[in-house]
C-alpha cells in the first residue's frame, strides 16, 4: 500500500487564532510541504499554489445512517489534490469558526476514495482563553469543537489572570479531559505538537488516560456536553459487548461525538481497540497484552446528554 497522506483538521471559534496558527505552520521552517484547504480565501497571507479555497458543503449520505454527514467539497478537493501526490507531505483542513467537526472527520471514514488516499491524523482546536467561557455558554459549536479535539491550543493566555486561566481549563477539562492541551500566546506552539498525532490510528491508541493528573478534581457535571469513562478490571465477553456497542452507537450516535475503547476479550491474547465518531465505529485487534500489563477493559464517551448511569450499567453487564 502506498503511504497515506496525513490530514490535520484545524477548528476553532471565530477570533480564537486559527489564521495565526495556520500562517505560523506555513511560514516556519520545518522542512514539510503542506496543501492547505481554507474556508476564507485570502485570509492566509501566503502565496502558495497549494492553498485551496473551499465552500463548506455538508450533506447527508444516502445510506440510512442519519448522522452520517460528509463534506462534499472536501471529497472533490482531495480527489484533485491526490493527482499531485509528491508535491506535498501533509494536508491541513481549516474549518469555519461555526463548523461542526464531525462531517469533516466522517468524510475520512465514509468516502472510500478519500480513505484509501489519506488518513485523518488529528482534530486540533484553537480556543481563546479570554472568551471561551462566554462562548461555551452561548455557542454550541464551540463546545462541539472542544469535545471533538485531540489537541487543544488554549491561546491568548496573556490576556487573563492565573485564576481565570485555571477556570477556563477546568471548563475545557469537564468537556474533554483526554485531548493534549497547550497553553499559548499568539499560538506559539511547536509544529511537532500538532502533526503526526495518529489520533485515529488504531495501532497507535496506547492508552486512554486523561491528559492531566489532578485526580479527585471536581467537574461541573451539569454541562450537557461532557466525557465519561468506564472500566471493567478484567475481560469482557465479545458476544455481549459487540451487540451492545453497536446498539448504543445506532441509538445514541447523534449524541456521541467521540468514543474510544481498549478491551480485553475473553480468551483473546490481543487487545481490541476501537474509536468512533458518532455512529461510525472503527475497531480491530491490536498488539498482544504485555506480560506486565493488567488485562482490563476501558471505554470513553464524549457526548451530549448521555445517560451515564445507563451506559455504565450496560457496559458492566458485558463483563466476562
Amino acid at each position, binding site marked *: 500500500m*502506498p503511504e497515506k497522506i496525513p490530514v490535520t483538521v484545524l477548528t476553532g471559534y471565530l477570533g480564537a487564532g486559527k489564521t495565526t496558527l495556520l500562517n505560523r505552520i506555513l511560514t516556519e521552517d520545518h522542512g514539510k510541504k503542506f496543501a492547505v484547504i481554507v474556508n476564507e480565501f485570502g485570509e492566509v497571507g501566503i502565496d502558495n*499554489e497549494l492553498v*485551496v479555497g473551499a465552500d463548506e458543503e455538508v450533506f447527508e*449520505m444516502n445510506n440510512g445512517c442519519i448522522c452520517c454527514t460528509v463534506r462534499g467539497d472536501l471529497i472533490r478537493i482531495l480527489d484533485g489534490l491526490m*493527482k*499531485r501526490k509528491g508535491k506535498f507531505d501533509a494536508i491541513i483542513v481549516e474549518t469555519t469558526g461555526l463548523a461542526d467537526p464531525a462531517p469533516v472527520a466522517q468524510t475520512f471514514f465514509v468516502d472510500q*476514495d478519500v480513505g484509501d488516499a489519506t488518513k485523518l491524523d488529528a482534530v486540533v482546536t484553537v480556543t481563546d482563553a479570554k472568551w471561551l467561557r462566554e462562548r461555551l455558554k452561548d455557542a454550541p459549536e464551540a463546545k462541539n469543537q472542544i469535545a471533538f479535539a485531540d489537541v487543544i491550543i488554549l491561546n491568548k493566555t496573556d490576556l487573563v489572570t492565573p485564576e481565570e486561566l485555571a477556570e477556563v481549563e477546568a471548563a475545557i477539562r469537564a468537556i474533554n479531559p483526554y485531548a493534549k492541551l497547550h497553553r499559548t500566546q499568539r499560538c506559539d506552539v511547536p509544529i511537532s505538537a500538532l502533526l503526526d498525532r495518529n489520533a485515529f490510528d488504531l495501532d497507535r491508541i496506547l492508552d486512554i488516560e486523561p491528559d492531566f493528573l489532578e485526580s479527585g478534581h471536581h467537574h461541573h457535571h451539569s454541562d450537557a456536553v461532557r466525557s465519561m469513562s468506564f472500566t471493567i478490571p478484567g475481560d469482557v465477553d465479545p458476544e455481549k459487548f459487540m451487540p451492545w456497542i453497536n446498539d448504543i452507537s445506532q441509538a445514541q450516535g447523534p449524541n456521541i461525538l467521540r468514543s474510544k475503547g481498549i478491551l480485553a476479550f475473553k480468551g483473546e491474547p490481543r487487545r481490541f481497540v476501537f474509536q468512533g465518531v458518532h455512529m461510525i465505529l472503527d475497531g480491530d485487534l491490536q498488539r498482544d497484552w504485555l506480560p506486565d500489563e493488567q488485562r482490563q477493559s476501558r471505554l470513553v464517551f464524549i457526548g451530549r446528554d448521555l445517560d451515564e448511569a445507563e451506559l455504565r450499567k450496560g457496559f458492566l453487564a458485558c463483563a466476562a
Partner: protein
Amino acid sequence: MDTPSKPVSLREHVTAIAAEAHVVAAHWLKQGLVLALADGRLLSWQDGETGEVAMHGGGLLCACSDGASIVTGGDDGRVMSWSGSGEPQEIARDPKRRWVDSVTLSASGSLAWNTGRSVHARDDKGRVKSLDVATTPQGLAFAPKGYRLAIAQLNRVALWYPNTEAKPELLDWAGSHLDVVWSPDGRFVVSSMQENALHGWRLGDKPTHMRMTGYPAKPRSLSWSHDGLWLASSGADAAIVWPFQGEGPSGKAPRECGARHAKVTRVAFHPKALVLAVGFDDGCILLIRLTDASELLVRPAQRGSGITAFAWDRLGKRLAFGCEDGAAGVLTVPAG
C-alpha cells in the same frame, strides 16, 4: 477463437510514452495525441515526436475536446484552450481563483465550465451566460442536439437552456451526483453518484427514473457504445455494461465484462464496433468484444500504475491510455 481465460496479447503493438505526471485526460486532435497532465502541462505526441505546452500555473483538473482543440480547467481558476499548435489561449479566469474542475464541449463548439457555485456556458458565437446554483455544480454535459446543458449537483441533475430565461428543469433524486452523460440519441440522462450507483432518467413530459446500483466503488467513468445502445461503466471488478435498447435498463441485468481481482477505473467504447477498452486500478488494460466476450490483453498489471485516461482516435485504429504514475502509451490495433 481464443478463450476469454487466456487473452491474446497485443503488448508488442503498444508504444510507450513517458508523461511523467498523473494523466488527467487523453484526446486525439488532427495533429495527434494530447495528454492533459495534473501538473498543469499538455504533452503532445505524434508518431513518437513529443512536445509540451504549459496550460495552468498550478494543477490541471479537467479537460475536454471536440477534436479540433483541447480545453482544460485548472486550480488557478482558468479555462484554457489549445488547438494543436501555437500558444494556448485563455478563455476565462475566475477573479477569486476558484477551481475549475469540470469542462465540457458540444459537437457544435459550445463550451461550459464551473466555478464555485456557478456554471458558465459559451455558445459557438462566443456569448457567455452564467447560472448561479444552490449547490456546487459537478459534472457537466451538453445534449447531443440543441444548446442545453445537464448539471450534476446535490440531490438533482439540472437541465439548463443557457440562451433562454427559463428556469432549469430539475431532475430530482436524493444524493450527490458527480458526473453526468447524455445518451447519443438524447433520450436518456445518466449520472454517477457518491453512493456507488448510477441514476438515470428517461426524458419526456414526466421523466422516469432508472436505478443502477450494486457497485462496490463510485462509477466515475462512463462510455456509450457507437450505436448508443449500451452504456459501459467503471466502479466494479468488471466493466458493467447496461442495455439502453427500448425503455432503458430498468428490470434488466447488466453485462459484466473482464472480471479480474482489481477495480475498473476507466472504460471506453470503440467508435465503430462493439469493442470495449477496460482499464483497471492495477494498471491492466483489456480489450473486450461484447458479441462473444473475447478478451485481448493490451497492458499487463503494473503496481501503482492505475489507468486514469483513455482515448480512441476517430476511426478506432489507435487507443491512447494514461496512468496515475505518469506512464502512458498508444496501442495501434493490428489490421485484420
